[in-house]
């Protein structure tokens, strides 16, 4: 298959490379750029572990071709915060025990970030709706919702 040019801004850096036309975005991120924080749990858009933010919207990167994200702004978990400077959501997830096996965590964090960027003061129901496309099999939803809610200025008591 002929390769085509792909360019986009990924985590604030301009990326430019040749890729097969049928390459999924998740495979570009993982296999070409080794941004392995983006996880594949199902390959069919059910689990949300591969969630990334494209131009402000949370997207399942297993469901789109890389070319559909051409010339857009892509944020993966690697661009959300650094060890020196965690994003407040990352800190909240740690402090509220919202992390268990960690496989859903990157997608969960990005879904939450996309919500708070648009709506800094969501209700608990709105938080649940925003992460409804992200599965956690360690039965950790309550603490995840608590962690997100803690950033809305409300009193959350499960820390």
């Amino acid at each position, binding site marked *: 298959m002929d390769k085509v040019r792909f360019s986009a801004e990924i985590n604030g850096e301009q990326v430019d490379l040749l890729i097969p036309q049928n390459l999924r975005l998740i495979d570009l991120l993982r*296999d070409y750029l080794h941004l392995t924080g983006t996880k594949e749990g199902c390959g069919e858009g059910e689990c949300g572990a591969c969630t990334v933010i494209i131009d402000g919207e949370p997207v399942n990167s297993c469901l789109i071709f890389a070319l559909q994200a051409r010339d857009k702004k892509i944020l993966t978990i690697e661009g959300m915060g650094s060890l020196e400077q965690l994003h407040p959501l990352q800190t909240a997830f740690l402090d509220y025990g919202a*992390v268990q*096996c*960690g496989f859903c*965590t990157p997608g969960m964090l990005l879904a939450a970030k996309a919500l708070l960027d648009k709506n800094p003061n969501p209700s608990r129901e709105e938080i649940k709706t925003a992460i409804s496309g992200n599965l956690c099999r360690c039965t950790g939803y309550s603490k995840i919702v608590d962690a997100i809610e803690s950033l809305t200025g409300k009193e959350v008591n499960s820390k």
Partner: protein
Amino acid sequence: MKKAVGVSARRVEGLGKVTGMIKFPADYYEPGMLYGKTLRTKIASGRIISIDTSKAEALPGVRKVVTAKDVPGHNGHGVLFPDAPVLADSRIRSVNDAIALVAADTEEIAAEALELIKVEYEELPGVFDPREAMQEDAPKVWEKGNILYHLPIRKGDVEKGFAEADVIVENTYSTQMVDHAFLQPEAALCTIDERGHLVLRVATQYVHWDRVEVARALGLSVNQVRIICTAVGGAFGGREDMTVQIHCALLTWLTKKPVKMIYDRHESFHAHSKRHPMYMEYKTGAKKDGRLTAVEARIIGDSGAYASWAPNILRKAAVHATGPYQVPNVKVDSYAVFTNNPFTGAMRGFGAAQPPIAYEAQMDLLAEKLGLHPFTIRWRNAFEEGSVTATGQVLETSVGLKESLLAAAKAFGWDVEQLV
């Protein structure tokens, strides 16, 4: 002196998890690595007449095609009995069975190669219900017979106990097969180090046993195999048996190249264990005041085609069969039975999760028949310090059941004085 108890501590590996830095097995890459894939059976019971791998081997980019004849050591694995084939050689016993492995330059080529392997089967009658599998004339999953395990528990005299009962309730309960569906599908990356030893990165619950299994199947000694447990994306019991480990190690050993294997969700369902479905026939007797006089139970667990942990799980089911209640007369028979279903193994509770469906429903039905509150019948039979269990264990300490019952009743807003 830093306080540890009573403070809210962050997970030690939490930072790696919130930043995406921590590595699960699929997150590792090695220069020059090959991709491995598994050909699995399409049938649940039968024989392999022939396997033709020539077309797959001729496909450009394919480095190795492996079948049962290429397994250097013992062609079997299992936590209690090594009865599950690494690669099926003739008899197919369940849809778990793997038939061939391919290592290729890319995942796409490996997938294409699987399509080119020609397998001829002869289908044989299978048995898919453990109660049917117990019959004399049932198709045999194993020549030695389908009943893998039987545990009888006897205490007192149930005939006498039922004779004393004012009310008796008899029912059969069943639970279903459940998949753990941990979020991270199985994956592994295997390399050979400078000593010529195998190094396998895998998410596992049983790292030292994985080493034994891999070494045994490859005909190596355990010091030639190193298992590195990566971050584990959920497990819940489903990573206690072999899935990718031996296959990935075998391809690496035979090609002398790094090999990566990643299951998709579909293959993950095919490859790992399930929760045991159980059929639970219960007969429970009680006096007018709710005190239990006898419990008779027959529990039949579906082990699928391989043993995995079934004896231990059906033992646990038997031990928990009477619940947290004092029962003077007990007769329990617990069986683990082979069928041609997917194999079952460890899953959260390990056999203790199924019987409560039965014994608690029995308590509610007895309460209804006797006109007692569901709390009252439980209170009158609850374990306390000094109680003797169905297996003769004397509970000497830490019996918090009645305290918990009271706390729950208060939380429901019930008038406890009226109920005890």
